[in-house]
């Protein structure tokens, strides 16, 4: 019995996707399979391949250095001081799950990371040929050889230009966590997700005697964090490198605000058409999570009539302009301070709580120290601190139907799944499938934002899926399949936490595993192009 999964290779030729049967992997990140289309199996060194195991999804693939349109990003520096020329692909991350239990990540150095049902990251070092040959490894039911070595600390990569490196921020290493394994796994993936930002101070606002030309700061910012929380780090850099101490004395952090800069592309706009290379500045929604700002930018780009490939390849830094004074408070609607950000954040958590259960008693039941703790977890970007409290208000998933796929016979497995890994049977009353409504919002590229009740189970008893939601609210983009037209052509795609979400993703599952830190599943809708 063969399972369908997907091989996704990203390279200079573009995206190619394929279905593979039994998943066996070769070193250098290529994918070989008995049912594969050979042309898609090729992935040269430095590119990343990711494998979809049943129900899995890929988050992002790297761009190769062979892409001439991409400006060189300089050297990548590891936290332990060693450096490496950026001759091959950058961060490659894969993710993702939809109700299944594993994912595979190929790192830049051809290390493999597999999230196992034990909930620990296991590292497999370069597979050569038959995974079964790996000494000390054990075979998963999917035919992958694994070396079960736990990573003590995740490598941290900073993206540097000749200007600045984000060494000012600290990241905490993930640690094991003891709730249902696959849920934790994907919560951690979401938590660890980052997006590249390029932040430039408005040159008109630079204080006297500043080191002009250096006022640009690159940062891989956590998706779950907020722009006001980046200000201290940016300020430290600016004070150290750019500003003259005297001249900068009068600056007040609480007046700092961000604007997003749309790059030099034709922007099709309803009320007027903008010609030529114009920068369109719009106030960056400071109270949106950073990941949402980025994904929304990605989907906005997807609506351009003509766009360069690099713009479409989705991993370019989002360019923001930092202003040091005179925040336009009417347009921003909320003060640009961390305190206001925290209030907004707590409000969103409560709204999500209320949507789920019809009351906010879970949120109001938290002690003050816990409420503050959840925000501290975000400020310090500490997964454990955040989830210690969030676990009390976020539902988890317990599968109510037996959904373990049968083991493929060709990978006669020596590995037996631990009995605790896939609990079946009793539905959890506090669980994701029992909520009144999943907190989910749909973001169209230039608005509006749509929110409506989204029950986890439909009237006919089947789980509510992303496809159901999209067909219901955006039928022009996601037509409902009918007996006369069983596979209608979608005009759009859905991005959740930067991941291309499969239509069959269950909303309840998304609500437990792929929410932002504020409890919401944010779905950004982009447009597809003709092939």
């Amino acid at each position: 019995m063969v399972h369908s999964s997907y091989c996704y290779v990203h390279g200079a030729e573009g995206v190619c996707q394929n279905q593979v049967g039994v998943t066996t992997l070769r070193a250098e990140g290529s994918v070989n399979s008995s049912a594969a289309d050979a042309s898609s199996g090729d992935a040269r060194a430095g590119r990343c391949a990711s494998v979809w195991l049943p129900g899995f999804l890929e988050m992002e693939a790297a761009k190769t250095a062979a892409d001439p349109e991409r400006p060189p990003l300089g050297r990548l520096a590891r936290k332990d001081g060693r450096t490496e020329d950026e001759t091959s692909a950058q961060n490659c991350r894969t993710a993702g799950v939809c109700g299944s239990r594993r994912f595979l990540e190929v790192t830049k150095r051809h290390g493999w990371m597999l999230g196992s049902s034990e909930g620990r990251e296991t590292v497999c070092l370069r597979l050569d040929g038959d995974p079964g040959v790996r000494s000390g490894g054990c075979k998963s039911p999917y035919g992958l050889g694994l070396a079960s070595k736990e990573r003590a600390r995740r490598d941290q990569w900073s993206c540097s230009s000749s200007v600045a490196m984000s060494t000012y921020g600290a990241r905490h290493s993930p640690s094991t966590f003891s709730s249902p394994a696959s849920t934790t796994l994907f919560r951690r993936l979401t938590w660890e997700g980052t997006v590249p930002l390029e932040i430039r101070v408005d040159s008109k606002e630079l204080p006297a005697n500043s080191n002009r030309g250096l006022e640009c700061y690159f940062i891989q910012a956590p998706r779950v964090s907020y722009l006001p929380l980046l200000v201290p780090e940016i300020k430290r850099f600016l004070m150290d490198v750019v500003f003259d101490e005297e001249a900068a004395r009068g600056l007040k952090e609480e007046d700092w605000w961000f604007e997003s800069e749309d790059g030099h592309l034709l922007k099709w706009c309803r009320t007027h058409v903008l010609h030529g290379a114009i920068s369109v500045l719009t106030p960056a929604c400071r109270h949106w999570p950073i990941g949402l700002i980025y994904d929304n930018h990605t989907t906005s780009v997807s609506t351009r009539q003509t766009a360069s490939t690099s713009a479409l390849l989705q991993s370019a830094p989002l360019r923001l302009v930092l202003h040091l004074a005179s925040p336009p408070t009417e347009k921003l609607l909320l003060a640009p301070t961390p305190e206001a950000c925290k209030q907004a954040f707590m409000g969103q958590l409560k709204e999500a709580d209320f949507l789920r259960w019809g009351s906010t008693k879970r949120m109001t039941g938290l002690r003050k120290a816990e409420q503050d703790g959840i925000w501290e977890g975000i400020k310090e970007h500490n997964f454990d601190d955040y989830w210690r409290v969030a676990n009390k208000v976020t539902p988890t998933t317990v599968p109510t139907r037996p959904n373990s796929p049968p083991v493929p016979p060709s990978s006669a497995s020596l590995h037996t799944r631990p009995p605790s890994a896939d609990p079946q049977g009793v539905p959890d009353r506090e669980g994701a499938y029992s909520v009144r409504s999943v907190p989910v919002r749909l973001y169209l590229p230039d608005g509006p934002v749509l929110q409506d009740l989204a029950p986890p189970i439909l009237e006919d008893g089947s789980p509510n899926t992303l496809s159901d939601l999209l067909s219901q609210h955006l039928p022009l983009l996601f037509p409902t399949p009918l007996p006369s037209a069983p596979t209608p052509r979608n005009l759009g795609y859905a991005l959740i936490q930067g991941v291309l979400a499969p239509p069959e993703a269950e909303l309840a599952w998304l609500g437990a595993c792929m929410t932002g830190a504020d409890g919401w599943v944010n779905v950004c809708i982009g447009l597809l192009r003709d092939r």
Partner: protein
Amino acid sequence: MALMGSPDIHAHGLVDGGESLVEGLEALEAYKKKDPAKVVVRFKAVGNAPIMKQNFFKVTVSNRFQAVIQFLRKELGWKAGEPLFTYINLAFSPAPDDTVANLYRSFATEGHLIVNYSTTAAWG
């Protein structure tokens, strides 16, 4: 074989959107149109906040919640600096850029959206 719903990326250079994109853009335009429908918002005073003579108002759904707050201020005759806190269903304070449409769909009870108002922070 391409996965349904995945963006396809061409080789280098400019990529024209093609017919799909045009159709998609038209769909987005349709969704951007402001819905002129109105729903009933019911204001309920909390604590020492003054009760208004008129508490039920019809509000166009495309309005942001910020507009509702400003409308309430005007009705109460309160200036911008005076503290005014608003909540939905005595439970939470919505983001000011949330639309009445979204809040109504998610939280309306008995045909209206209940907005509580007070002079002090209660559930915030």
